[in-house]
Structure formats: structure tokens, C-alpha cells
């Protein structure tokens, strides 16, 4: 394989950010806000710093492998991925674009901290099946650690919300 000239950190960051999340492939790592830095470390190696959404998340090895593959494609075959726990990830870090994509795929995003408060305070989430707001939380524990379950009073279906943390 011919050597690829190494891309600068900013361009690598864009490529890493475009990697889809293995569990929620409709959103990217950038949408989720987990890519914290792409920079050249003290030893000259390009380093990608990520913050896990959920501690010990089983998707992390897949995410790290995907990032390392991108680093190799960008001419940084020795590049590495490092986890940083502080500051802790919050669902507030999900971008507006990420929220839109989740909604489109029937997963209601957590409340957007950028929305002014009087709008954010609402009684029910909008049901992704029928559009009713006559919904109520059923359980904070759903199909995965990051999803809560809501139930719609109008169509009686359940739906997932990305858990606010």
C-alpha cells in the first residue's frame, strides 16, 4: 500500500467526526459530541481524545477501532485514541443536527439545553408514531443503557427517548 501523506489535524477531525456511532448509526461521533480533541501529542503522534457517553459502554472498542481505521486512511497509521473522563459527557452535548437525525429515526432526543426554558418545559414528548403529545414516561430503562421508554396515550405505542444524562 502506498503511503498516504498525513492530513493535518483539523481535516482528520472532520473525518473522525463523520464516523457513525455503532449503536445509533444515524448519528455521527461529532453529532454526539464525543470527539473532544484531535491533536499532535508530545511524542509527535496524532491523538484523538474521546469522552464516552456511557462509562464502560460496550460500543467503545468498536468506536476506537473505527477511529483508528480513519487515522490510518488519513496517513496517521500510528495515531492513537485516548479516553478522557473529565469533564463527563452530558446529553446536552448532542448537536442540533444530531437531535434532528435522532428525531427523524423515531428516537426522541433529550431536552435541548439551548431551547429557552418556557419552551423546554412541556408535559409530554411528541409521539414519533402519531404526533400526539399525550405521552408519559414509562421507564427510564429501555432497550439500551442510553434509551428511556415512553408510552403514547393516543396510539398506545411505546417509543424510545435518548436518556437525558
Amino acid at each position, binding site marked *: 500500500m502506498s503511503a498516504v501523506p498525513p492530513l493535518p489535524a483539523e481535516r482528520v477531525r472532520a473525518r473522525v467526526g463523520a464516523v457513525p456511532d455503532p449503536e445509533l448509526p444515524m448519528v455521527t461521533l461529532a453529532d454526539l459530541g464525543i470527539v473532544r480533541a484531535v491533536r499532535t501529542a508530545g511524542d509527535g503522534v496524532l491523538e484523538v481524545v474521546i469522552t*464516552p457517553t*456511557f*462509562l*464502560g*459502554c460496550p460500543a467503545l472498542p468498536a468506536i476506537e477501532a473505527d477511529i483508528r481505521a480513519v487515522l490510518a486512511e488519513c496517513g496517521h497509521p500510528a495515531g492513537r485514541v485516548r479516553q*478522557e*473522563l*473529565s*469533564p*463527563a*459527557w*452530558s446529553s446536552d452535548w448532542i448537536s442540533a443536527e444530531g437531535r434532528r437525525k435522532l428525531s427523524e429515526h423515531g428516537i426522541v432526543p433529550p431536552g435541548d439545553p439551548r431551547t429557552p426554558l418556557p419552551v423546554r418545559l412541556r408535559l409530554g414528548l411528541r409521539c414519533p408514531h402519531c404526533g400526539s403529545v399525550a405521552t408519559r414516561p*414509562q*421507564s*427510564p*430503562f*429501555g*432497550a439500551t*443503557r442510553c434509551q428511556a*421508554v415512553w408510552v403514547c396515550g393516543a396510539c398506545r405505542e411505546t417509543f424510545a427517548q435518548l*436518556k437525558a*444524562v
Partner: protein
Amino acid sequence: MTPSTTGRPGRDLAAYTLRLGDDALVLCQRLCALVTRAPTIEEDLALANIALDLLGHARTLLAYSGRLDGTGRCEDELAYLRTEREFRNALLVELADGDFGVTVARQLVYALYGELLYAELARCSDAELAGFAARAAKDVEYHRMHAAQWTVRLGLGTAESRERMRAGLELVWPYAAELFETDGLVERLDAAGTAVAPARLRDAWEREAAAVLAEAELAVPAASWQATGGRSGAHTEEFGALLAEFQSVSRQYPGGTW
């Protein structure tokens, strides 16, 4: 500042994170065994999710402990290759699964403690532990809500549910004190601002527990005796069986990966 991996501060912090990691790991294992045995399928899901959160906490804490203690052991080596006497969890989390009232009572005791502990630890001077705690506190807040809601529901339910919740509380209450025990290790770390001596959380825990039980119209059990020993590796009889099952695959297929 992250303490050096050699010398006393690093070893102290390694021992401290091992205690917290073992608490999370062992409670995770107990909760996993309840899946398909909860009263409803939603509750199966809830207990499995709580167990997964705890597994995530345990992995992070054990991996950190292994990096700090100078042996370079990874999370799996710490979880699967230690013997019973080397585990440092409090006895509360290893109590055998029994009635659902016991499960709820144990969850209430542990989650109230975990929420207070992690909120405090989030302000400690060790950046990695603080970051872990800030994130873990949010998970444990959901666990506390879950346990408190069940305590109130069972307490205000039927005579049967109320009696079983009361019996669960009575069984687990003597195991709460151990969570707040102090020794030279936690006092050194607390004085340095690196970690939290759990004794400082006791009053807040008592208040919060009393508030939940008051809402459930249940009495705070009298602490007739206090369990101790887990932090020095002296465990209950049931713990050996738990560990034997937990470590069986790793011992049958040493080094196996998939």
C-alpha cells in the same frame, strides 16, 4: 493532578478505587442473576440496565485501579483472577438474592449512598476519578429514583407487599453501616482531597433514607447489629458461590477472548 503510580498516594488511590469497583461489580452480578425473575418484564429490563451501568462503573474503576497499583493488571484480570479474600466490596452488595423486597431494599441503601458519594467525588482533586464520578452520579440518580419508587409503591401497596418490603429493609439495614466505615486509607485520601471518606456522607444518607421510608409509611429499621469485614476481604458464605459462578468461564478457558 493524577497521583504517581508508584508510592503511597498511588497505592492508596488504587486500593480505594478497587473497593468502589468491587462494590459495583458484585452488585452487578447479583442483579444480573435476577433477570427473568423480576415481577414484570419492564422490571427485568430495569434491573438489567442498572446492572449494565454498574458494570460500566466497575470496568472504569478496576481499570484505573490496575493502572495505579503498579501491577499493570487490566480490569479482566482484577475481576476474574482474584480470590475471594482479595475482593474488597462491602457485604451489602453480595447478599444473596431472595425476595424482591430484599432487592429493592438493597438497591435503596446502595443507590442513596452511591449518589451522595459520587456527587462528592466529582469535586475531588484527581481528575480521572472526578470525571468518572460526575458521570456515574447521573446513572445512580436513576437507580435511586427506581429504588425509591418501588419502596414507596410496595410500602403503600397491599398488606403483602408492605410486609415483604419491611422484611427486606430489616434484612439489609445492618449492612448499611459498612459503607460508611473509615480507616487510615480513606482518611489519608480525604485529607489530601483526592477522595471522599464515606463517613462524611452518613448524616445525609440517614436523612434521605428516612424521607423515602416516611413517604412509604415504613419505619426506619433499628440497627440491631452492624456487618463488617468486606473491606478487609472477610466475606459472607454466599460470596464464594457467587465468585465461583462469576469466574467459571474465565477459569475454564484461561485467556480466552471472543
